[in-house]
């Protein structure tokens, strides 16, 4: 299967506002190292998940791939074409093929645009359809995402819809251009539990129907397990483990992955789980300690862990981990 997206040594550093004194007396620049040398590729048609806790850089990576942010260094490839430096017209053409669904259904729709106009707008921007043709396509999309009867929804404003409905609108807006690749940033975390499966099913349906490839970003590993083909666990800007869903969950290799998996609540009463205790808190992304960035909290820390940062190596077939213990 061919590769549709590849990133190589991707980095994104955000400059930190210095206090007045620091501005005057030091030349040192401080950065938040949100994404710190990330390399992976996504195969056409698969669902690749970036998982991790908040602040690990997964959302930033997603935004970098669709060029909503400019990378500090590294390369991004879409269908073998280097898109890292694309600008203007070429970038706009690219946007037709890559789309995003955002986390917050309340914030991702323009409160002053009817949803009919909002969903039709991408067609207008790219000059793909107008007037009656555009209206027809919008109604078609409404039907697809389950907003029925479609005619009724055309002139409604976002505040007249529920969270689940809004997310469907957002989904509709992103598929109307028939993209090839979609970044889904926590698409169901802010939706009621009873509606999550519906949205997820819709997304899976579009994979079949449109041949979509997904980059799924989430902190909810239970959902990740349900829908992903391959998962990469991120910690403090780096990938610490990556592999197929089966190998990752059956045989987690990195201590962080093991701790994460042991902490996930299981819907069974009084289940006695052995949660792996992690010391301390996630260190700040501005001052990352030398060596393995997880070492400060790792229960299995050895001497060599604090010296140099471990690289991602293939421990089993298609199962990569960045740790000296394996």
């Amino acid at each position: 299967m061919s590769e549709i997206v590849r990133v190589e040594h991707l980095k994104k550093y955000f400059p930190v506002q210095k206090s007045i004194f620091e501005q005057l007396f030091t030349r040192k620049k401080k950065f938040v190292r949100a994404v710190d040398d990330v390399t992976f590729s996504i195969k056409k048609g698969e669902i690749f998940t970036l998982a991790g806790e908040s602040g690990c850089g997964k959302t930033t990576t997603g935004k970098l791939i669709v060029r909503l942010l400019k990378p500090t260094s590294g390369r991004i490839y879409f269908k073998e074409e280097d898109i890292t430096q694309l600008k203007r017209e070429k970038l706009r053409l690219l946007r037709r093929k890559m789309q995003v669904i955002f986390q917050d259904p309340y914030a991702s729709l323009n409160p002053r645009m009817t949803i009919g106009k909002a969903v039709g707008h991408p067609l207008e921007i790219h000059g793909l359809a107008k007037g009656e043709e555009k209206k027809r396509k919008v109604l078609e999309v409404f039907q697809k995402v389950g907003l029925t009867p479609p005619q009724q929804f055309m002139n409604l404003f976002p505040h007249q819809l529920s969270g689940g409905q809004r997310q469907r609108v957002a989904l509709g807006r992103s598929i109307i251009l028939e993209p090839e690749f979609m970044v889904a940033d926590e698409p169901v975390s802010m939706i009621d539990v009873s509606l999550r499966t519906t949205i997820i099913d819709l997304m899976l349906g579009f994979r079949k129907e449109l041949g979509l490839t997904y980059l799924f970003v989430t902190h909810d590993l239970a959902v990740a397990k349900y829908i992903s083909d391959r998962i990469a666990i991120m910690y403090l800007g780096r990938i610490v483990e990556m592999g197929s869903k089966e190998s990752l969950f059956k045989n987690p290799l990195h201590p962080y992955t093991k701790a994460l998996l042991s902490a996930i609540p299981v819907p069974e009463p009084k289940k006695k789980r052995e949660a792996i205790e992690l010391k301390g808190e996630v260190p700040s992304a501005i001052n990352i300690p030398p060596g393995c960035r997880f070492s400060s909290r790792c229960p299995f820390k050895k001497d060599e862990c604090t010296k140099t940062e471990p690289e991602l190596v293939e421990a089993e077939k298609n199962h990569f981990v960045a740790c000296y213990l394996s």
Partner: protein
Amino acid sequence: MPLLEVDSLAVDYRTGRGIVHAVNDVSFFLEKGETLGLAGESGSGKSTLGLSIIRLVPYPGVIGKGQIRIDGRDIVALPEHEMQTIRGRKVAYVFQDPMISLNPVKKIGGHFVELIRTHEPNVSKKEAFERGKTVLQNLGIQPERINDYPHQFSGGMRQRIMIGLAIALNPDLVIADEPTTALDVIVQAKILDLLESLRKTYQMALILISHDLSIILERCDKIIVMYAGHMVEYADATELHDRPAHPYTQKLLQSIPNVELSDQKLTAIPGSPPDMLNPPNGCRFWPRCSYAMEICRVKEPSLIGIGPNHLVRCFLYSEEGVQSE
């Protein structure tokens, strides 16, 4: 006598656009040291229920009918100054968002001192301070940090401080409203473990309010499932998990991904939670229920016992329902 008894409680919000019956006919009891889970989605009324137990329902909410008895004493009509002796002391509340629940210009020590001295005016500032430090230690936070400001702590630590404030006076009942929603899964596990151990040490009863059925199932003795303001099912955790009776509970259980299972088939619940200004007639769940019968559309079912400590609000189990089919 149970620690907490709620009897046919009804809470309404009198808004400019109409009355929202946020909580309807809720009855349950809680013994000392037990954990009760309130599960439900947005609009289910679980938060309102929690707030009404401590009489902090925000305007324009009003407790309409029913009784809330703490140690046998009805607190619904209690004058405010007497209620203030109960709040914090007998019943404590942990709010949802730790980012905004602490006073940003007050040091942590100040929070503890204010709390302790409000309820125990004879305690000196120094003593209150020391007690605060002890609490922090029990929470796993370095006691010296009592002199820090809230913004110097991370979200997880702030939530722990909130919990610390709640248990500082050794209350009999702690109500935790979505205590882990804003937190990551590892911190979440730590906080829930902390609540559990504190509960055991101090013999506190806990009401855990959450939309995450997984945490509720894992950590609670008894569970109430709320939907659109109604208590639709009430059972022990194991009973609810093994024999869910209400169609909503059943569907809900089938729609949660379980990280320990492979090849799960999750089912979706059609439709969406109702508009609380205009809920459906009859049983509020009928538009989304695959078992909906004629009677469900016109009449509201009442709570029926279907097993030891197992109540459900559904015509599938009542004679009326069975008869009409």
